[in-house]
């Protein structure tokens, strides 16, 4: 073992000669336009254009008059901008049953989505909390069934739920649909909340118990205030999911309560009359608007929400 002092002296000695170094020195030059960058950004920009194209076509189509659409090219920007298709889509478009436009579906969707989101999140967050912090015998079995349930095709459970709702007197009502959304939102949301509450330090929970807080006390006073981000994630997940639902809306409600997606499909795919593509596209944008706005505003939280499904439990 040599004297460690010698090593230290040689190391310190290299510093003063820095100014006279030959050859490469300092930061390596890097070209902004390299072959790698052209390929990389070129590909990404092309892909982005492909993804944006349908949105663009939707918007320009909805702003054109029908004659212009028949004459021209779907990619061309409108020569004469008109908002008439939007007005018509919102308040006059016909579904075969009635002709008061999408507005009815919009308000139905609002009336379905708001209570569904609140109810499903309330139930799932308490479930997740009980599973994470107050494990009781058998809880894991129910949770496993719940998670497997998320993979069962909805079609398998469609009819039994019809029977259950009919027994409860809720078949064909808004509240029946709210219940269905809460039930089918439960697996993913419970998983989301359970994982989140498990990730919180367990000692915090223990400290609260020593401090004499009970099940609900800890939930409301300790856990809830710490969990706002995950509630926002759950909300994004549920609002977009429920707003975009088609199957449950069509199965469990009456035409007067049809959500926006169902009504949109009925407007566009109704065989009566002349196809008004501009009105159809305006209606399509209107229906996609709520989830799109949520998506663009929420950004990273949306990503976190959908990735939650991939996080192992």
């Amino acid at each position, binding site marked *: 073992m040599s004297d460690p002092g010698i090593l230290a002296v040689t190391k310190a000695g290299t510093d003063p000669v820095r100014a006279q170094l030959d050859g490469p020195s300092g930061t390596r030059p890097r070209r902004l336009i390299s072959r790698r960058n052209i390929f*990389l950004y070129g590909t*990404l920009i092309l*892909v*982005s254009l492909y*993804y944006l*194209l*349908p*949105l663009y*076509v*939707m918007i320009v*189509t909805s702003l054109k008059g029908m004659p212009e659409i028949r004459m021209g*090219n*779907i990619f061309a920007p409108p020569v004469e901008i008109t908002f008439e298709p939007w007005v018509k889509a919102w308040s006059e478009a016909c579904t075969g049953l009635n002709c008061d436009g999408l507005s009815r579906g919009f308000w139905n969707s609002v009336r379905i989505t708001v209570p569904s989101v609140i109810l499903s999140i309330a*139930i799932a967050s*308490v*479930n997740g909390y*009980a599973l994470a912090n*107050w494990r*009781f015998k058998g809880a894991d079995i*129910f*949770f496993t*069934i*719940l998670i*497997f349930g998320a*993979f*069962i*095709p*909805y*079609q*398998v*459970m*469609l*009819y*039994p*739920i019809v*029977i259950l709702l009919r027994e409860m007197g809720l078949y064909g009502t808004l509240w029946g649909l709210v219940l269905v959304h*809460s*039930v089918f939102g*439960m697996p993913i949301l*419970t998983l989301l909340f359970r994982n989140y509450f498990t990730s919180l330090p367990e000692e915090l929970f223990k400290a609260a118990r020593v401090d004499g807080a009970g099940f*609900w006390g800890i939930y409301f006073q300790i856990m809830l205030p710490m969990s706002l981000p995950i509630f926002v994630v759950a909300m994004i997940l549920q609002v977009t999911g429920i707003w*975009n*639902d*088609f*199957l449950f809306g069509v199965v469990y409600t009456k035409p007067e309560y049809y959500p926006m*997606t169902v009504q*949109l*499909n009925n407007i566009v*795919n109704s065989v009566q009359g002349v196809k008004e*593509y501009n009105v*159809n*596209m305006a209606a399509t944008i209107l*229906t996609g608007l709520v*989830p799109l706005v949520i*998506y663009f505003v929420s950004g990273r939280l949306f*990503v976190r929400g*959908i*990735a939650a499904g*991939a996080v*192992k439990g």
Partner: protein
Amino acid sequence: MASEAKRPIGLFRNLAAKIAAIPMILTALVVFLGGTLWTVTYSFTNSKLLPRADFVGFDQYERLWATERWQVSIENLMIYGLCSLVFSFIIGFVLAALMDQKIRFENTFRTIILYPFALSFIVTGLVWQWLLNPDLGIQNVIRSLGFTNFDFNPLYNPDIVIYGVLIAGLWQGTGLVMVLMLAGLRGIDGDIWKAARVDGIPMWKTYLFIVIPMMRPVFITTLVIIASGIVRLYDLIVAQTSGGPGISSEVPAKYVYDYMFQGQNLGQGFAASTMMLLAVAIVIIPWAMLEFGGKKRV
């Protein structure tokens, strides 16, 4: 001794948590487990307008598999499913790998590629129905550019209509695969890249032989999520083609709905949905064995 706490016994132990879990327990037992068993059981009956406990063995299944519409549905689902898996995985992974190159505007690119996923399948289906409109859509634009023989009309050609749906499905779903893959790539220890660089291994080789094998769990989870979504394929078909032309773009989920709620032939609907369940089980059970069977040993 009087001040001693009583031992809370049996059912009443941890009572608040149990009460709070009642919705979950009901959902798991009554809806998911009970509903599934009920449907499977009644698929062996000859229920028509209303469920009847008149058991007829495998009659419904025999009829199901003899129906042309069901055969077409299964074929379509296989084509759609296989292509959708292969393409969304390849495109999703390549995009994720590109996004992982410490690029600028990563957020912007990700936002653009993922936004279709926020949309309803109905919206997606209707947009692509319009884009693929033979008289006014993409085909028309390209023909008007001078390529008069250009032919791209999937929605009205029974042989390729399912590929028209596939385009829309991929447009909507690839972003999700990309995000999941990107999360997987980000989860890989950064030292792996450093080690590969020091060893002088080219990037593509690092991906192929080191990174992809390390991402096996991410691939499997993504596969399960995507596959169970594919089996449910319904809204997109309803919006984009309504199953047409003819029955050439029918899928099992639509078969179930139509027989249950329009055709008043519940037994067929139950049998068809049980077949869907079987298809999902084939994907899920091996995965669960892999995932949870391995966990038990720890």
